């Protein structure tokens, strides 16, 4: 499979994996290895003073994985900027998955606040990977202000609905000059294969792997599906046709006249 480049950094894997919802740090660590991912997302939260030492991330090998802190929980640009600065101070990493989700039910990203935060963060030297609705105009606006990728959603976070936004994703892929990372709602390996087949540069999966009956096996399935989809895209798939097109020759039949 060809390599992925984001902000000048090259990756062999086109599957980004989230670290939420795993049943244990050990299962998470095994699933991350099985996924082949090189970029893994993490969240920032207040320390739980009544229940400290819940160090879910202790098993992550920081040499092997690039931590990508997210701004989950932010409802405004100001909150997202604050979380990004804290993340950078905490990790020494200036990459951030920018999420601004004011609506707790569908967790859809706010385009206005996301664009506003992206402008500030890019100016402050962050490598910004913004989570957005599959809006081609917004994707262009974000790439114009200097984000490293765009991360349009397939369907609402954690919903396992797959590529409900396919038509808009195709436009984003066609127009984008930065890598397109399809994020959210990808519930099955077939969903990520579809995203890669239409030309997405990468995908991000969390819930579908973390909450599977066997997360390690599911991580492997997603890794294979991403690779299959990417290879198919690069191999040049043919467009569907209305009528049949015979695969066998239409001459030399064993038939009279």
């Amino acid at each position: 499979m060809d390599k992925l480049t984001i902000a000048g950094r090259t990756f062999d894997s086109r599957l980004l994996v989230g670290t939420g919802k795993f049943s244990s740090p050990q299962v998470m660590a095994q699933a991350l290895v099985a996924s082949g991912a090189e970029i893994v997302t993490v969240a920032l939260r207040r320390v739980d003073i009544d229940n400290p030492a819940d160090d879910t991330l202790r098993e992550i090998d920081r040499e092997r994985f690039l931590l990508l802190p997210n701004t989950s929980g932010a409802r405004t640009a100001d909150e997202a900027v604050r979380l990004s600065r804290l993340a950078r101070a905490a990790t020494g990493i200036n990459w951030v998955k920018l999420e601004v989700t004011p609506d707790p039910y569908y967790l859809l990203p706010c385009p206005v606040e996301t664009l506003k935060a992206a402008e500030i963060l890019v100016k402050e030297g962050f490598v910004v990977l913004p989570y957005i609705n599959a809006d081609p105009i917004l994707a262009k606006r974000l790439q114009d202000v200097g984000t490293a990728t765009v991360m349009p959603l397939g369907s609402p976070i954690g919903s396992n609905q797959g590529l409900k936004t396919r038509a808009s994703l195709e436009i984003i892929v066609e127009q984008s000059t930065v890598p397109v990372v399809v994020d959210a709602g990808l519930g099955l390996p077939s969903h990520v294969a579809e995203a890669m087949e239409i030309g997405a540069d990468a995908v991000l999966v969390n819930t579908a792997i973390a909450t599977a009956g066997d997360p390690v096996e599911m991580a492997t399935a997603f890794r294979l599906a991403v690779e299959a989809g990417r290879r198919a895209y690069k191999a040049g798939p043919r467009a569907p046709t209305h009528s049949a097109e015979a695969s066998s020759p239409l001459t030399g039949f064993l038939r009279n006249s």
Partner: protein
Amino acid sequence: MKSLKVNGVERQFAPDRMPGTLSALLEALGVGTDAVVAEVDGRIVRREEFPRTEVLEGQQIELIRLMGGG
């Protein structure tokens, strides 16, 4: 009693038990290595700076950790 607001909750300390630094506060709260960064009255403080960061009565302190997320 002296008070600090830590992660949104008011905490009282006897004057002779009031932590002098962020590191001392973490120890008093029984928070080990969880906190990877802090905010003191909105100012970001890196973990390396915890031992020499003074804590004063009435301050608002946020102790932040990394955790699993998508």
